[in-house]
């Protein structure tokens, strides 16, 4: 069940998605044996207090969240969490965030070489404050600039987490591949809104939030597939995976690995169940390794 993603061998194809696993220290129930790796809660250079409540709203088969990347900042992360990661038997990737290219560059430089940090997942779904608040992830040049800035600061694996809120994900995928990304993660949450009919206003204080959960799965499978067709580097599929069959859809659609997120809120054993279910499927179909799984990835 081991897979190679962007030059790094993972012991399994199922990873914990950023923002759904904290810093890996919170959930004692989780069966860590099944973890191919973990992506930490998104971090900025400086501490962030996060958005005002209400921060979450449940929707049909999904949830909206606007947490505001609450976190301790990079120095707090290095002080409180990375020393624990260094002793773990699975790699921890740090999800990095910035308001400018230079902030991403500084974060990567600060974290590169810190024991316990196995690599980076760049969240490009952040507004570029220096460019009028346009999201890095919506602009191929800005997405490439961030990727290149991080790439030049580290020899660790650099993954780029793509936003689904674009008209052609292939354009962004190719831009960050050319800028030196080792792998792509597809996709981040969809921007959504839900209205409180008693208060006549949005249910989230931030107005909008990121939609996750099974509600987005077919959309995410399609976008991950489109990204995989656009590039040569591996794609890690994300979006509404709750069972092994969901993960297998992403894998057959061209992904090298998957991340499980919202499902772990509901089922503390979700990652182990997805991992074991993939192994059961392969066995039942007569495959001896994940590499033998047929992929639907036509190249036009």
């Amino acid at each position: 069940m081991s897979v190679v993603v962007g030059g790094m061998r993972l012991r399994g194809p199922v990873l914990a998605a950023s923002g759904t696993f904290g810093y890996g220290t919170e959930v004692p129930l989780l069966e860590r044996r099944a973890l191919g790796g973990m992506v930490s809660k998104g971090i900025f250079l400086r501490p962030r207090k996060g958005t005002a409540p209400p921060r979450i709203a449940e929707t049909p088969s999904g949830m909206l969240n606007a947490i505001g990347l609450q976190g301790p900042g990079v120095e707090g992360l290095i002080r409180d969490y990375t020393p624990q990661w260094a002793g773990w038997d699975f790699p921890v990737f740090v999800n990095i965030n910035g308001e400018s290219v230079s902030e991403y560059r500084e974060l990567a430089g600060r974290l590169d070489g810190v024991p316990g940090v196995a690599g980076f997942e760049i969240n490009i779904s952040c507004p570029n404050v220096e460019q009028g608040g346009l999201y890095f992830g919506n602009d191929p040049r800005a997405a490439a600039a961030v990727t290149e800035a991080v790439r030049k600061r580290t020899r660790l694996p650099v993954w780029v987490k793509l936003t689904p809120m674009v008209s052609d994900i292939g354009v962004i995928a190719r831009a960050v591949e050319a800028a030196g990304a080792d792998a792509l993660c597809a996709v981040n949450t969809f921007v959504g809104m839900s209205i409180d009919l008693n208060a006549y206003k949005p249910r989230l204080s931030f107005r909008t939030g990121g939609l996750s959960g099974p509600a987005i799965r077919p959309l995410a499978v399609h976008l991950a597939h489109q990204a995989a067709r656009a590039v040569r580097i591996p794609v890690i599929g994300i979006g509404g995976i709750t069972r092994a069959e969901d993960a297998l859809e992403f894998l057959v659609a061209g992904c090298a690995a998957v991340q499980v997120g919202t499902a772990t809120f509901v089922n503390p054993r979700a990652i182990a169940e997805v991992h074991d279910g993939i192994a059961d499927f392969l066995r039942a179909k007569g495959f001896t390794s994940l590499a033998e799984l047929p992929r639907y990835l036509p190249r036009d």
Partner: protein
Amino acid sequence: MFLLDAPVTAKRQVARDMFVIAMDAPEIATSVRAGQFVNLGWSPGPLLRRPFSVYRVDHGRIEIVLKAVGDGTAQLLAMRVGDRLSCVGPLGHGFDLMSGLRSVVLISGGLGVAPMPLAAREAKSLGMRVTWVHGARTRDELCSEAEGSDVIWATDDGSKGFAGTAVAAAPDADLVLACGPNRMLSAVAGRWPEALVAVETYMGCGTGVCLGCAVPLRGGGYDRACKEGPVYRAADIDWASLPSDLAYAVTP
């Protein structure tokens, strides 16, 4: 923290629209503290689990108290004896009852009765005199179950007991514990800054990772109702920033 398959063992009505559901959850029953909660899921059901304070504990069973305030709780109320719930708990930080105090007042508004029977039991075992002040809008919305050396009833419309809020009806004591709508808890904070209050928030994971249940603190920043909470010293909360109008909240 345990993840259990918990069959429903009983259901009873305790007020208009308010029910108690009991389930087998032995590991939780023996370890839960007053003010802690369980996170319940069921299938088919909503995506997210639903958090409930543990109401009573008896011989390997735990009880929760609920009203149908949305689709999820309506499904839960439709459960029958033998139906299985997935139960994670005990979760959160409950009421810390210091020994050496002589008297405690429990103030509950509406569904805020939820953590009080366990709190009353722990207080009694520490030798405290327990007064329970029970508030609701009307007589038939008052939970019919109460315990304590003294029980004071309060209704907004005066149909039973004191005419007015539970906060106004409550006497002073060495320690005040309160649970109910956040608006009520804000009034508790005004009168007894040292009171311990169990707040209400929306919750995502219940285990501290999603940061969805943010509670604004007076000293700045947020922490998690599911982890550091749901019980807080009343004076520590920034009440003006804590939503008091959750869509499912019961008004006092």
